[in-house]
């Protein structure tokens, strides 16, 4: 796939995931663990797409990709642990 097309597809995914997270966050119901997990999961998915494709670390691999990918996962995981 052409790099421009790939970036455009990733961008559409990012926009869709953001709108979906907004929709879930605005649901008129109390946020239980599953809902919070879903919101954080969407955040992690978006961060991964950003790191891999927009930052271009997918082609680099190694420690930098792991460090940047782990950032959102670690922050959300620690927040989740603190909330629980």
């Amino acid at each position, binding site marked *: 796939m052409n*790099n*421009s097309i790939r*970036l*455009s597809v*990733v*961008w559409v995914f*990012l*926009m869709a995931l*953001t*709108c979906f*997270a*907004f929709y*879930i*966050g*605005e649901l008129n119901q109390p*946020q239980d663990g599953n809902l*919070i997990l879903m*919101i*954080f999961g*969407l*955040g992690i998915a*978006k*961060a991964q797409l*950003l*790191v891999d*494709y*927009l*930052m*271009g670390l*997918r*082609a*680099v*691999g*190694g420690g*930098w990709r792991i*460090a*940047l990918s782990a*950032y*959102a996962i*670690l*922050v*959300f995981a*620690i*927040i989740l642990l*603190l*909330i629980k």
Partner: protein
Amino acid sequence: MTPSSTHVNVKKSRVRFSFSKNEPLPGDLAMWVLILAELTVFAVLFFTFIINRIISPEVFQAGQAQLHVQSGLYITLALLTASYFVAMGVNSDKNKSHKWAVAWFYSGALCGIIYIGIKLYEYSILIDAGFGLTGHPFFMYYFLITGFHLIHVLLGVGLLIFMAIAIQRRKNTENGLDSVASYWHMVDLVWLVLFPLLYLLK
């Protein structure tokens, strides 16, 4: 080997190379060290916010109810679009389409300006309602974290415009371009954590 099969082999090896995991880190190493340092500072701010939220949940929930969640959505969409434009700009520059690279970078900067506009509008509404850096603990953290992020966006917009001008003047920008793009994506990455934390988590 026929000439046509050689051509196919060259094409295949190029495609394979573009997916190889041994490509060098885009931009300067110093920029990546700065990015890690910035991400660590933001992580500390996030944890401080969440610990205070656990200590006084009612106060934080009351403060959060004053926020315009739709503004948060528009800001996120603007930043993601800016990141997309910047990535397209880097891609265009690597393909030697400098005019397109300039256009993409200016578009990215415009999205950053849209973010700044929405954020300042949001601030003005909150300040008019009597919230500021002092008094309400939620808004103290809100203004501190988003203000710190806003400073990064301002710097990022300035760098994007600077790089667009540098490409226009045909200066050697390859390494600087990657560094600025990586910085901008870092600003976006921070917001991807900030958006659910401030606006969506209830």
